[in-house]
């Protein structure tokens, strides 16, 4: 699970005359400089500020019914009458091009050759050459529910996909058409109504509908540590007077490696080259154990995570 750094904060409309904020399921994206753009079931577009204040930008007419992002780095909207996806600029949401007609979708990734959408388990693709047909490109996550896809690294062709029911997140490589190993994580507990990612800030944004109120939470791209493995010696158990590498691994609840955490090693006998060690990007912390000169039995070594 990613680390919560802000929120949850309730969403409140800026202008009292507006309808309460209404985050449509699966209709959110992050726009640098403007914040979290969300779409409501009333077909309006709102900008959510980090304080929870919501500013209306798109009116209910002509009405938008989907939100997404293009591979060349533009937010995209579709209008509910033509089902035509277009790149737009915020806040005016003005059309820039004729766009692409697709069957109704709430959230897409517009690539050069195809448009991706995510069901909660499957990455599916509409080829631009035959947009009415869509097919499973890859099965990434498990579990029921709807999903979202949003940009992680456009140059590398990588997109985050999230199952909104479980809040599980995975990284998808749209070039290799496969999940990128080692990045599976979650944005707290589900269900979510929407999720987005700021590439500039390396932060995740998630919306939930809790107790009749829409809420915003912000997560750092850093897992919460959930476990630390027992210290293990390499290449073999220590002998009297020997030096051995000893290491422990810090992982999150979905086995995400936790880098940058301080692990302290202690032992009933013997000593360490460094007792406090920072984990590497793979979550491992290692140090050198100096066994006592004389034989000893019943000694124990302990690794403790200092958060």
């Amino acid at each position, binding site marked *: 699970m990613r*680390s919560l*750094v*802000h929120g949850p904060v309730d969403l409140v409309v*800026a*202008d009292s*005359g507006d309808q309460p904020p209404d985050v449509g399921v699966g209709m959110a994206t992050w726009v*640098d*400089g*403007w*914040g979290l753009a969300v779409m409501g079931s009333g077909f309006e*577009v709102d*900008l959510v*500020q*980090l*304080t929870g*204040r919501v*500013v*209306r*930008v*798109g*009116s209910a*007419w*002509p009405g938008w019914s989907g939100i997404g992002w293009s591979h060349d780095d533009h937010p995209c909207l579709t209008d509910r009458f033509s089902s035509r996806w277009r790149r737009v*600029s915020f*806040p*005016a*949401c*003005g*059309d820039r091009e004729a766009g692409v007609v697709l069957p109704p979708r709430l959230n897409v990734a517009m690539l050069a050759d195809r448009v991706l959408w995510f069901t909660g388990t499957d990455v599916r693709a509409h080829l631009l050459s035959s947009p009415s047909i869509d097919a499973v490109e890859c099965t990434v996550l498990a579990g029921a529910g709807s999903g979202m896809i949003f940009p992680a690294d456009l140059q590398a062709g990588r997109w985050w996909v999230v199952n909104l029911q479980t809040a599980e997140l995975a990284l998808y490589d749209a070039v290799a058409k496969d999940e990128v190993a080692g990045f599976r994580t979650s944005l707290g507990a589900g269900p979510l109504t929407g999720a987005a990612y700021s590439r*500039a*800030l*390396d*932060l995740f944004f998630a919306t939930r509908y809790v107790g009749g109120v829409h809420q915003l939470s*912000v997560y*750092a791209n*850093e897992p919460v540590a959930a476990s630390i493995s027992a210290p293990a010696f390499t290449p073999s158990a220590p002998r009297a007077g020997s030096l051995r590498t000893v290491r422990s691994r810090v992982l999150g609840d979905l086995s995400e490696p936790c880098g*940058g955490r*301080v692990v302290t090693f202690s032992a009933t006998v013997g000593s360490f080259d460094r007792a406090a060690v920072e984990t590497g990007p793979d979550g491992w912390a290692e140090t050198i154990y100096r066994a006592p000169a004389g034989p000893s039995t019943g000694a124990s070594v302990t690794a403790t995570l200092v*958060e």
Partner: protein
Amino acid sequence: MGLRQCFTAADPLAYRLPADIDPSPFEFLYHPDLLVAPRVYGEEIATVAAVWGGRDPNRYGPSSISVLAIMRQVRWPGWDITRWKHDGQEGRLLSRDVGLGGATMSTNGRFSVEPGGAVWWYGDPYVARAAELDAATLQETGSVILGADFGTLALPAFAVDRAADRVFMRTDTSGSRVQVHRLSTQAKLADIWAPGEVRSIVLTHDGHVYLVDVLDWICCYDYEGRFRGALKATRAPSAPFGVVYGWDHYFKRLLRVVGTASATDGASTVRPEGFFPEPEAWELSPPLPLKVPRKGRTIYSFAHIAGEGGEPLAGRRLTFTAGAASSTVAADANGDALAPLTPAASGALLVQVTE
């Protein structure tokens, strides 16, 4: 107000008492509700129609602000078109002219003002047609622009700048799109957009056009249709008589008239206002650490500063304070500022950010 307000007229758009209005040829009163006690005034704004300002030396200063409004009144014929003129510095009422325009104008009171000062009426209910008016009498001069020449049969919003060879027109009945054309050739140059339905097209002194929408977003474009930025004003308060925007060509400011409800005695509460088109800082986000702070680890803390609509404010200097340490950083083009933070000790650390 999310925009920097620089002017509120000292005097309202004053109303007349019944005795000050020309006697009626008929005995009965039009709009008798205007005189239901404790109301005493014989007229009231029905719709604010236009506001503009420019060089016009007077006893208070070098410029004036004019407001046009459609009136309803107790005397015959029951309606009127009135122009108030205030001085541009204090907003003292200089004059008012009544009995302008004609009956068709009074029921379709859509006006726009050219940067050169000419007043246009584009409310013809039968034809998409804009006609130049004599500024003193509001009678047509004979200069006409037809929507049909630009491929439209509807003209819900319109502005023209003949000196710059440009026409701006909204052709959808409730749309957020405005078309930019050359006046001479009718060639379409661009579509420009506001978030919501456009209610005013305001042309500035320096070749920019502001689209003001029903959400009080103000989107700025140049005459080629290039987007130059967006601001948001506070949503206009209850305005039973409408809202209209214009430009003050002398003081280079955005003018607004909000048709607020009359006082209990029927007196006018409507005053022209002026704003410099720059947002005031409206919201400073809480400081957000990009990673979880830990003792001895340097992380970056992020804050965002924005105007009322969330429009990013570049260049504002934000000061981050964490314990005894502080650093000041200028916000970037996205209104974002990042400051390094290295907690020296374990435990809670209060991080604050101020402008």
